[in-house]
């Protein structure tokens, strides 16, 4: 079943089509990857899905329901959470408070204060940040801030999680830990759509990969198909 579908999704910035007529779908329970050179429209596509931007024209459906034109907080409460390429943690709040906020506001039913605190503690354990739960988020390392964003996103109880360059800027050990975290999230039954530049990571965890170039989708397939696709190699390495 398609948990997320896009039809003819387009976004112009002035005269430039950042995302041009892209059709895509994400299947329930998979880890889907999105790659492409810098400026190819990957983050713009994420912004369109999470409603930071509105596609024009184009339609995006989540679990069959048209979500085009909804507000970001509505999208979140429907079950689509995201992290950011440049981390956007609540820097002056303690780590646990960051996660508790997701829990308090991220669901359509609302969560009691006690439940939110309990969930936040569990999630910090899940991502491995229990030891720093009282630290202000600004004092964490980049890798830990990225994990914090994942925990905060998970606190909103998503069915689909958008990860925007979770591994960028991390050292090899941290990349391995992040990959392990991604698979553990999938094992919890959450569908993942991730943008990544670290090829080793995306090739090994993804079930399916889409490639964007100048805002257009130029290829789609299993990691193996993508790695051997002539078109993709041309885009990345030049002709």
């Amino acid at each position, binding site marked *: 079943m398609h948990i997320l579908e896009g039809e003819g999704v387009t976004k112009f910035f002035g005269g430039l089509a950042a995302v041009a007529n892209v059709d895509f779908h994400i299947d329930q329970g998979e880890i889907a990857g999105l790659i492409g050179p810098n400026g190819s429209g990957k983050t713009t596509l994420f912004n369109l899905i*999470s409603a*930071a931007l509105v596609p024009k024209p184009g339609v995006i459906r989540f679990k069959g329901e048209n979500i085009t034109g909804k*507000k*970001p*907080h509505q*999208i*979140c*409460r429907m079950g689509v*959470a*995201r992290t*950011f390429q440049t981390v*956007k*943690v*609540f*820097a*002056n*709040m303690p780590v646990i*408070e960051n996660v508790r*906020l*997701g829990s*308090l*506001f*991220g*669901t359509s039913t609302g969560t009691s*204060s006690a439940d939110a605190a309990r969930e936040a503690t569990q999630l910090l354990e899940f991502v491995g940040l229990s030891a720093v739960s009282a630290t202000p988020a600004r004092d964490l390392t980049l890798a830990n801030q990225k994990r914090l964003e994942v925990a*905060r*996103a998970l*606190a*909103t109880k998503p069915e689909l999680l958008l990860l925007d360059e979770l591994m960028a800027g991390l050292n090899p050990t941290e990349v391995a830990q992040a990959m392990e975290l991604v698979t553990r999230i999938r094992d919890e039954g959450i569908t993942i759509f991730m943008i990544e530049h670290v090829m080793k990571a995306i090739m090994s965890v993804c079930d399916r990969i889409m490639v964007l170039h100048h805002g257009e989708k130029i290829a789609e397939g299993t990691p193996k198909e993508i790695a051997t696709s002539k078109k993709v190699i041309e885009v990345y390495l030049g002709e």
Partner: protein
Amino acid sequence: MNTTALTSKRFLVPGLLLVIFIALATLPLYGSLYTVILLTAILMYIIITVSWVMFSGPTGYISLASAAFFGVGIYTSAILLPNTGAVLPLLAVVVLGGFISFILALLIGALTLRLRGIYFAIFTFGLLVLLQQLLLYWEIEITGTRGRYIILIDNDVIFYIMLAIFAVLMLTVYFIRRSKFGLALQSIGENEEAAAHIGVNTTIVKVITFAISAFFMGAAGAIIATRWTYIDPYIAFNPLFSFLPVLMAIFGGMGQLYGPVIGAAVFAYLEETLLTKFPYYYMLLFGIILVVVILYLPNGVVGLVQKLWRRISGGQRAHT
């Protein structure tokens, strides 16, 4: 010993607040008329400052519309409490003044809170000038009145109404800070985009807080107008009241709930004393004090006191 220390600490703050409140509430019984009038003015400054901090503190949106909301309250009184005879009871006018400011802030907020930083600040200031000029036009061209006189109200009554507004405001701020709503407000100031993407309805939270803060400014304006007795658009919409709350909040320090309260109180008292003691140099002295505070006390007067306190209590601990 430990438990007594804990209970005494738990009762210390509410107890102290109660004592201050009772002292204020009984002031007209033992204080001179001058003290009552001075404290009315100080309370008014505190109300405007705390209302400003309620919204601009956590969100980081610098509003310069305070004087507009304050002025709407003043003008509500000017129209409904003319010296020819009150149209509505005093209390109703005060609430109405607040309510009209509330509605105005809802409209303005919905329209402008997508602007950030300097654009928001300038727009809110523009709103003040627009309202001032619109009223001036309306008074001159349509009603044919340049200024309005307001009925005389007993100074004690003015003081008590101001005190009541202050008490309700402090309770409101206290409960907002402790609530889920306050947390949402804080998250907007930390990172608005992230807040929206974890399910916070940022528009609603911002607009409602902006409107609540405007309510208290409007109510304070409505009651202080009866002290001023003569009102015209330039008096009602004086830009000074847009900048003073910002200055007072910085002066006191915005980190704690009582920072702006103490800042506004000291600031207002200082202004009054300098004005009476040094009528010719008061602006100069006042300016110097402000510059020193902004340069050397980034966390305001309260920040300085906290630092000194930590040094003293830390010193005690070192001795034992």
